[in-house]
């Protein structure tokens, strides 16, 4: 005879299995959450490890004789054509007098960056008295030497497989033993534009380009976005047109950013013939891109203003416009500004549409106006990431750290603003 189980017993028989399942489900949840956070940790760690070294740069100390014959032939200063490179080379040769032969010397010259000549020229330009004297100067080492000092080039691998020869490494060691090599803060990274030489490449041009672009973006998208939000929340009648606008805004927020780039290329550059690569066009495209973000945030801010405020103002005889502009708008402003900052931080990180409108050019000069050719910080990262040189990988990480720093500051500002201006009704 089969024993009859009670419900209690049936439940208890399955309990262990069910508890196991519960435990499993919960663990999977923990693992999933951990995956995201773990990635974040690995990501930041690798970024800092790779990028932090780029903030330091190796410099070589040279005694350079500023020969008046070279710099000022016939007593006239000749900054345009004087052979400052030659002077730097003379300084190097003075350091290693026993290096002979053309190829050896050429290898020797490669230890110092071409930036040394620019530095010399700037020195002479600033103070003409130095001509004819011998100056002890710290000039930037070439990127290969820099990489060797930072340990990114392994001296133990086969000579053919590295960018520095055995002789060059011996010279670098000699310089190091002499105390003629030192590492100092990399000012070039923040004061130069782009360059083909990693040791001279900086992000100032990209930062200025981004700055001009964001200026255009905020001055267009904030007023337009706020106006649109006001209309949709306070005035829009319930009709087809308003519905159409609503649907459009929501869709635009999800349209891929590269499509906005196509729009910019076709409309602003080909049709309106605005200049290519200009921050003006970049700003226009980014303002269209951020407009939905700002409209959505502003609408939320307007919605949060309680109706009692409106009713009180209307009751005192204010017109609908006066209610909005004198009462609702000031109260909603903190929320709108927060939305604007978040929109701007999105615009700052955006690069795909900028590729479309020609902001990927190699531009050495720091842009000085809205129509100068320029790149933006994220695009500079993209350009450097493509460069094969080891030293550029390091600089890319550094540029990313700077970019993330800006984004962090903006988001922090938004959070602080929201906290301080938050109002409970």
């Amino acid at each position: 005879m089969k024993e009859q189980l009670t419900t209690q017993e049936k439940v208890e028989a399955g309990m262990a299995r069910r508890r196991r399942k519960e435990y499993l489900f919960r663990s999977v949840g923990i693992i999933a959450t951990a995956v995201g956070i773990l990635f974040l940790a690995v990501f930041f760690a690798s970024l800092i490890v790779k990028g932090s070294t780029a903030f330091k740069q190796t410099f070589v100390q040279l005694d350079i004789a500023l020969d008046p014959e070279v710099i000022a032939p016939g007593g006239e200063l000749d900054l345009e054509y004087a052979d400052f490179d030659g002077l730097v080379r003379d300084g190097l040769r003075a350091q290693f007098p026993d290096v002979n032969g053309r190829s050896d010397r050429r290898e020797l010259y490669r230890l110092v960056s071409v930036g040394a000549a620019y530095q010399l020229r700037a020195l002479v330009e600033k103070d003409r008295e130095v001509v004819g004297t011998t100056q002890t100067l710290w000039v930037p080492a070439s990127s290969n030497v820099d990489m060797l000092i930072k340990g990114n080039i392994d001296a133990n691998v086969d000579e053919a497989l590295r960018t520095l020869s055995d002789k060059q490494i011996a010279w670098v060691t000699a310089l190091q033993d002499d105390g003629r090599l030192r590492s100092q803060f990399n000012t070039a990274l923040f004061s130069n534009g782009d360059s083909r030489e990693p040791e001279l490449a900086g992000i100032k041009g990209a930062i200025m380009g981004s700055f001009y672009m964001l200026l255009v973006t905020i001055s267009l998208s904030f007023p337009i976005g706020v106006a649109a939000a006001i209309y949709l929340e306070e005035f829009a009648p319930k009709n087809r047109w308003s519905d159409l606008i609503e649907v459009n805004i929501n869709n635009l927020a999800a349209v891929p950013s590269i499509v906005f780039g196509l729009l910019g290329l076709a409309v602003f550059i080909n049709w309106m013939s605005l200049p290519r690569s200009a921050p003006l066009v970049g700003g226009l495209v980014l303002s269209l891109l951020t407009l939905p973000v700002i409209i959505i945030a502003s609408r939320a801010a307007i919605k949060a203003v309680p109706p009692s405020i409106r009713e009180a103002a209307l009751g005192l005889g204010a017109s609908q416009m006066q209610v909005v502009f004198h009462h609702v708008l000031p109260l909603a402003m903190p929320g709108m500004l927060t939305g604007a900052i978040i929109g701007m931080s999105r615009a700052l990180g955006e690069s795909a549409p900028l590729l479309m409108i020609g902001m990927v050019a190699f531009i050495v000069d720091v842009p000085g106006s809205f129509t100068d050719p320029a790149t933006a910080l994220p695009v500079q990262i993209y350009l450097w990431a493509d460069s094969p040189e080891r030293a550029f990988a390091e600089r890319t990480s550094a540029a990313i750290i700077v970019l993330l720093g800006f984004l962090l500051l903006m988001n922090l500002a938004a959070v602080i603003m929201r906290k301080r201006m938050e109002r409970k009704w």
Partner: protein
Amino acid sequence: MQSTTLILLLVFMSVAAFYFGRTRSLATVGGPGHGTALHSLPGYYGYYVAIWCGPPAVLLLFVWLMIEPRLVVALLVDGLPESYRSLSAGELNLLLNNIKNLAAGDVVTVDVDVVLQDAAATYNAYIARSRQLLAVLAIGVAGLGAAGAWRRIQPDLRARNRVENVLRWLLILASSIAIFTTIGIVLSVLFEAIRFFQKVPISEFLFGLSWSPQTAIRADQVGSSGSFGAVPLFTGTLLITGIAMFVAVPVGLMTAIYLAEYSSTRVRGIAKPLLEILAGIPTVVYGFFAALTVAPWIRRAGESVGLEVASESALAAGLVMGIMIIPLVSSLSDDAINAVPTSMRDGALGLGSTRAETMIKVILPAALPGIVGGILLAVSRAIGETMIVVMAAGLSANLTANPFEAVTTVTVQIVTLLVGDQEFDSAKTLAAFALGLMLFVVTLCLNVLGLGVVRKYREQYD
């Protein structure tokens, strides 16, 4: 006169107009003490005059500056000697560019002869004349408008209503920009795409299996006919999107479940903002990470187990893209899970089911539409994502489903076709717009569907 100076002058005139309008409104009723006799506050009369002063003139300025180049060029071409006028459109364009550069004092690419010199001088003269005319006209319009409005000021002029009416139209205009943007996108990609389909049949584009968009400069070059079969791009996009969703959906969903149902408020308070950071990292940074860290790592891992992995494998791009999308999936799933009424949850728990059983058998089925909507939005995001694939995926259009091989995507091809020097009429550049059209249409459908499902579902339990 410089247009910036002109604009500044117009701004100044508007400010003055405001002042005069305000003063006159008070004067008509006999001084500042009698303001209540006016229909509107005195300031509105000021705004009324200012609106008639500045905006029409600025509008004129913009229209003028839009038309001016075309008009000047037409006049210039008319004045050129016969031998130049008979040049082909392209050559004429080059010549005009040179004339403009010469006029601006920039570098010119041809020998400067007398005709060119003359043309440059004429060009400068035309521009100078046009600017003079513009300045006179703009100031005239501003002055006349202000004077007319100023004369109309009377105590019973409904100034506030008129000003508010203008303001209302401005608001409507601002909100319509979203529609204009959409129209602009559709038109700009559609026109170029239609031109592309005149050169390449639409069936070849949609169903062709080979993609090599180089078109030759000379007709007799090898491989002169580019082939524009976009199927490899579609499969490549789908492969990478698939890998991304394979990562993002389970991880995002389980994260949302854990944070919504299991975690303590403290863990939630820490983990949620951390995951939000993932959403804030620029895509170019993900691309860098995918190309320089993840791809070599996967390659090494593959080699160690004897697998052939391309250095620009679909796997690396897909994995990193999946990580990028986790926050999107998890926050939309979180919304969907939280929208399920507590009564359903309490009911299930009260009947003795475990939390996991409640989740799987009650809450997830109830939240499914919302989750699916969120996934659709995430797919649309993955398809349109550009920087990660540009940096980490390849350029060669392989028709393969092997995640270890290099594939290319629609967005990568748009970027490669349009970056750099381009001739705007070649099938190569036009192809980018055809791809853009495809991208726009597909993401639009996904978005409309996804947003619709999410919204409808949200209302279901309200």
